[in-house]
């Protein structure tokens, strides 16, 4: 595609570029934006940097979805127990599968996750619930919340 083609069409198109001077394979994201062709601006950044940002965000979302899915599943069994469809002993056995195994998270990662979950779900969350999302110790969550509000 030459310059004349671009000016005539006015739309962005995929350009095949064969690197000759680079020995290593590269991966770039090119973003063009603006209200007209005259003030169009372009940002070129490595895909890995954008990927890293979204990867963390998506990871937190996946953790929340997984936790909520478990919660729904558990609530279903709990309702069955309340309605007398399964016995107390059966419920206790089933609930063993849902017991949260707490893991230790670094403070900075936990703070990032908590700030994100607060943005998504609002402020009315207890440390127990937040700890449930990320399967970590409630006391670590309380500590992280203190640091966030300080």
């Amino acid at each position, binding site marked *: 595609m030459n310059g004349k083609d671009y000016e005539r069409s006015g739309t962005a198109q995929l350009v095949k570029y064969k690197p000759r001077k680079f020995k290593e394979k590269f991966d770039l994201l090119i973003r063009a934006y603006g209200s007209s062709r005259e003030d169009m601006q372009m940002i070129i950044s490595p895909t890995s940097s954008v990927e890293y940002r979204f990867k963390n965000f998506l990871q937190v979302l996946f953790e929340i979805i997984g*936790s909520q899915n*478990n*919660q729904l599943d*558990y*609530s279903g069994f*709990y309702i069955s*127990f*309340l309605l007398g469809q399964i016995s*107390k002993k059966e*419920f*206790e056995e089933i*609930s*063993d599968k*849902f*017991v*949260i*195994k*707490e893991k230790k998270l670094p403070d900075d990662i936990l703070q990032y996750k908590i700030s994100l979950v607060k943005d998504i779900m609002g402020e009315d969350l*207890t440390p*127990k*619930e937040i700890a*449930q999302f990320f399967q970590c*110790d409630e*006391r670590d969550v309380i500590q992280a919340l203190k640091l966030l509000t300080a």
Partner: protein
Amino acid sequence: MGTKDADSSESRRPLSIECEVAELTATKTNTLLPIIHPILNQKVYRLKLRWGARAKILKELSPKRFRIDSDALLDLGSQISGKIIECISTDPVGDFRTVEFSGKHRAQYSIASGYVYCNVFVPFY
């Protein structure tokens, strides 16, 4: 060791109870996933009571000693209330009934047993 009366504390509002049997009353109840409690070192079931939450001791611990909170109320009949109360018990809480709560609303009522610990997470004011 942690034996305080609900009426005797004038300056400090009671925030938690520990007992063998407690009655739980709330307009909205959420269940949370069970965990292995770090202090008790055993599986506990968790509930979050909302909207006019109340927890009252029906049976004291024997021996009457706190296990989690040194400031917890331990006496028979002691109760706590708040906007949100978090409750853990070693036995699953079942048999919810609907009871009269206020002039306008009714509430869920249940009995928690085993080892029960309730604490006020959000007070009324």
